[in-house]
């Protein structure tokens, strides 16, 4: 298993493997159904969920509309509070900034809080190339890192692994990275958590540099916010002397008060808790408490391009809760790896093709990785209309032509002409009915249907013929029921 997503096959091919992997299907089904029911309960506790959702959406939309202003305000406040702000246009620039900052401390290792932004830019690999070891400290990230695996979920990157697989990874790999797993380690989750605690403890206690992302940044105060559960975040944010946070520019919110919305919606949407165990907020550096040096790296990496798309920009509201993954029937069966990105699931299907463009095979296939069932939109705490953006991106992909789409376009054109001529349509329907069956070989893509499903039997005649025979038309062109055949 390779640790990168480069050269991913298109979604249907990658998903095909996953669908037939019984262990994976079982793991995903178990995990997503567990969290699905809990989320519904946690959300139902709040009578004003719809209003919180609307406020969250509006806060994000307002911020995005005035993003330049809020970023400048944030920069000013962070700087005034003793932090240093850097701007990175793309992944390479962000990686270079972080690597240089780490090198300047003279250290050769960093401890990391789980962060989607640093995953997105491939920071760990970039640091490794510079001789710097980056240790993931979130339990699921640790499982992925030890297993030389790829993340498959936003909140729980190792969701594709069950407890027995995790035990095996800990037993065989922990010793290579530091303290070995305890002898006789079982697959009881509490024992696995304890093994992670012991393994990472020594790394936390000696760490001089911490690297994080942030869930939110408050422009009016210069405050950064990290939501977490295990305490690894607190360790990384408070014990090291230097803290470097890499954060997407869309993570800013205008005011401190705005957090009251997301502090209610994010935990319930993501881990289905009233509140996650730990939330840390910090503003620059604090005298005698926590890191003495703080760097904030503001990351674009495709976000401004996404912002320019009037339909697609709503994807930037995302607060990375994972609720859409957990309810998605496609994600549940295809698994996260099939999406070929650190952002899997419905949100990944609209985010990756926007951040990376729709030219690659995988990115061109992602907008179609959905049955448009709408479950994702229903649970999204910032009301991202994911089906709407999917359809919008399909237009973009269909418009760019390329493999498979030329034939489809021709078929759509031909069908469009027929459907614009009811007489021709009726003739076609009659012809199909006469033979009393569809001809799979003559329908484009029908093989994909008949491999696993029967085609419907064709009726004796189309509805419009029945109507003509059984409901007598009146002289003015409308018809009238008389119950008799004409």
């Amino acid at each position, binding site marked *: 298993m390779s640790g990168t997503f480069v050269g991913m096959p298109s979604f*249907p091919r990658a998903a095909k493997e996953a669908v*037939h992997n019984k262990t994976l299907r079982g793991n995903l089904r178990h995990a997503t159904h567990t969290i699905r029911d809990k989320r519904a309960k946690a959300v139902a506790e709040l009578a004003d969920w719809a209003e919180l959702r609307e406020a969250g959406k509006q806060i994000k939309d307002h911020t995005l509309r005035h993003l330049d202003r809020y970023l400048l305000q944030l920069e000013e406040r962070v700087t005034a509070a003793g932090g240093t702000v850097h701007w990175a246009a793309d992944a390479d620039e962000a990686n270079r900034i972080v690597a240089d900052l780490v090198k300047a401390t003279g250290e050769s290792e960093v401890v990391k809080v789980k962060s989607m932004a640093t995953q997105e830019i491939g920071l760990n690999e970039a640091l490794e190339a510079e001789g710097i070891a980056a240790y993931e400290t979130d339990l699921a990230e640790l499982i992925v890192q030890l297993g030389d695996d790829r993340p498959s979920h936003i909140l729980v990157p190792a969701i594709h692994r069950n407890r027995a697989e995790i035990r095996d990874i800990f037993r065989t790999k922990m010793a290579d990275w530091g303290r070995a797993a305890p002898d006789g380690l079982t697959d009881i989750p509490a024992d696995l958590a304890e093994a992670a605690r012991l393994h990472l403890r020594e790394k936390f206690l000696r760490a001089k540099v911490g690297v994080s992302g942030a869930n939110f940044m408050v422009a009016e105060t210069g405050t950064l916010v990290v939501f977490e559960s295990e305490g690894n975040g607190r360790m990384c944010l408070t014990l090291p002397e230097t803290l470097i946070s890499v954060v997407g520019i869309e993570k800013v919110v205008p005011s401190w008060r705005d957090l009251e919305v997301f502090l209610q919606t994010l935990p319930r949407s993501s881990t289905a808790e009233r509140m996650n165990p730990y939330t840390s907020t910090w503003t620059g550096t604090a005298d005698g408490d926590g890191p003495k040096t703080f760097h904030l790296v503001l990351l674009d990496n495709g976000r401004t391009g996404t912002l320019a798309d009037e339909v697609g920009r709503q994807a930037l509201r995302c607060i990375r809760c994972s609720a859409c993954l957990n309810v998605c029937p496609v994600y549940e069966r295809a698994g996260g790896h099939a999406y070929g990105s650190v952002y899997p699931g419905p949100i990944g299907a609209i985010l990756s093709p926007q951040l990376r463009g729709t030219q690659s095979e995988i990115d061109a296939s992602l907008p179609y990785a959905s049955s448009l069932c709408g479950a994702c939109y229903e649970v999204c705490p910032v009301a991202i209309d994911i089906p709407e953006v999917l359809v919008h991106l399909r237009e973009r992909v269909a418009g760019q032509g390329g493999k498979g789409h030329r034939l489809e376009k021709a078929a759509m054109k031909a069908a469009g002409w027929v459907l614009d001529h009811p007489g021709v349509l009726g003739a076609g329907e009659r012809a199909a009915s006469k033979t009393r069956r569809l001809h799979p070989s003559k329908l484009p893509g029908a093989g*994909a249907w008949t491999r696993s499903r*029967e085609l419907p039997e064709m009726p004796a005649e189309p509805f419009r013929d029945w109507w003509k025979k059984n409901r007598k038309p009146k002289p003015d062109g409308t018809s009238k029921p008389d119950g008799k055949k004409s």
Partner: protein
Amino acid sequence: MRVALFVTCVNDAVYPSTGIATVRLLERLGVEVDFPEAQTCCGQPQFNTGYRRETERLVRRTAAAFEGYDYVVTPSGSCAAMVRQHYPKIGDASAAALATRTYELTEFLVDVLEVTDVGAYFPHTVTYHPSCHGLRLLGLGDRPRRLLEAVEGLELRELPGADECCGFGGTFALKNSDVSTAMGQDKVSHAVSTGAEVLCGADNSCLMHIGGVLRREEAPLRALHLADILASTREEPLV
């Protein structure tokens, strides 16, 4: 009141029985139904596949075909949702007006005719799959269930995981046929677990997919549109 049947292209070509059942049901309830023959397809397949221009042409055609009717009734939650949700954004004023006059069959029965007992007779065990667009885009809620519960002789069985997508999704069923099939198979195994004789739905495109899996797997139940069940009476029972 002038009522038009919007039969949908799938029903017209593949499931005329559902269109006929809808006509008979409405007539039995005293509604005079018309079928404007200029109608073809609402444009949903084109829209959802990313072909905006082809969609626009069909939106214009559909809006023109149903001009002048007070109510446009369709036995498809999905096509009703296309008109209701997307026509105002895609088409002109007449398309937007059509959106306000279009009713999915169960909405028309329960909200406009204010009837839940339609006098149907269907002595079988039935489980109901609420298709996604009816469930989430139209918010049909318990209307189909109330109609089914009032059918004489019908025993309704709860479908586990009812609100999960069956995996049809238009071209999704072809472009991602492995995932689509896996979803359909799970839907079928849930339906089988109810022990019902019939899997009922209000969208024949979903039923074409579920029914295709049912027949391939030789599962002991069949797929039927809600209209076919509601049209069935003691005098003219559906067999």
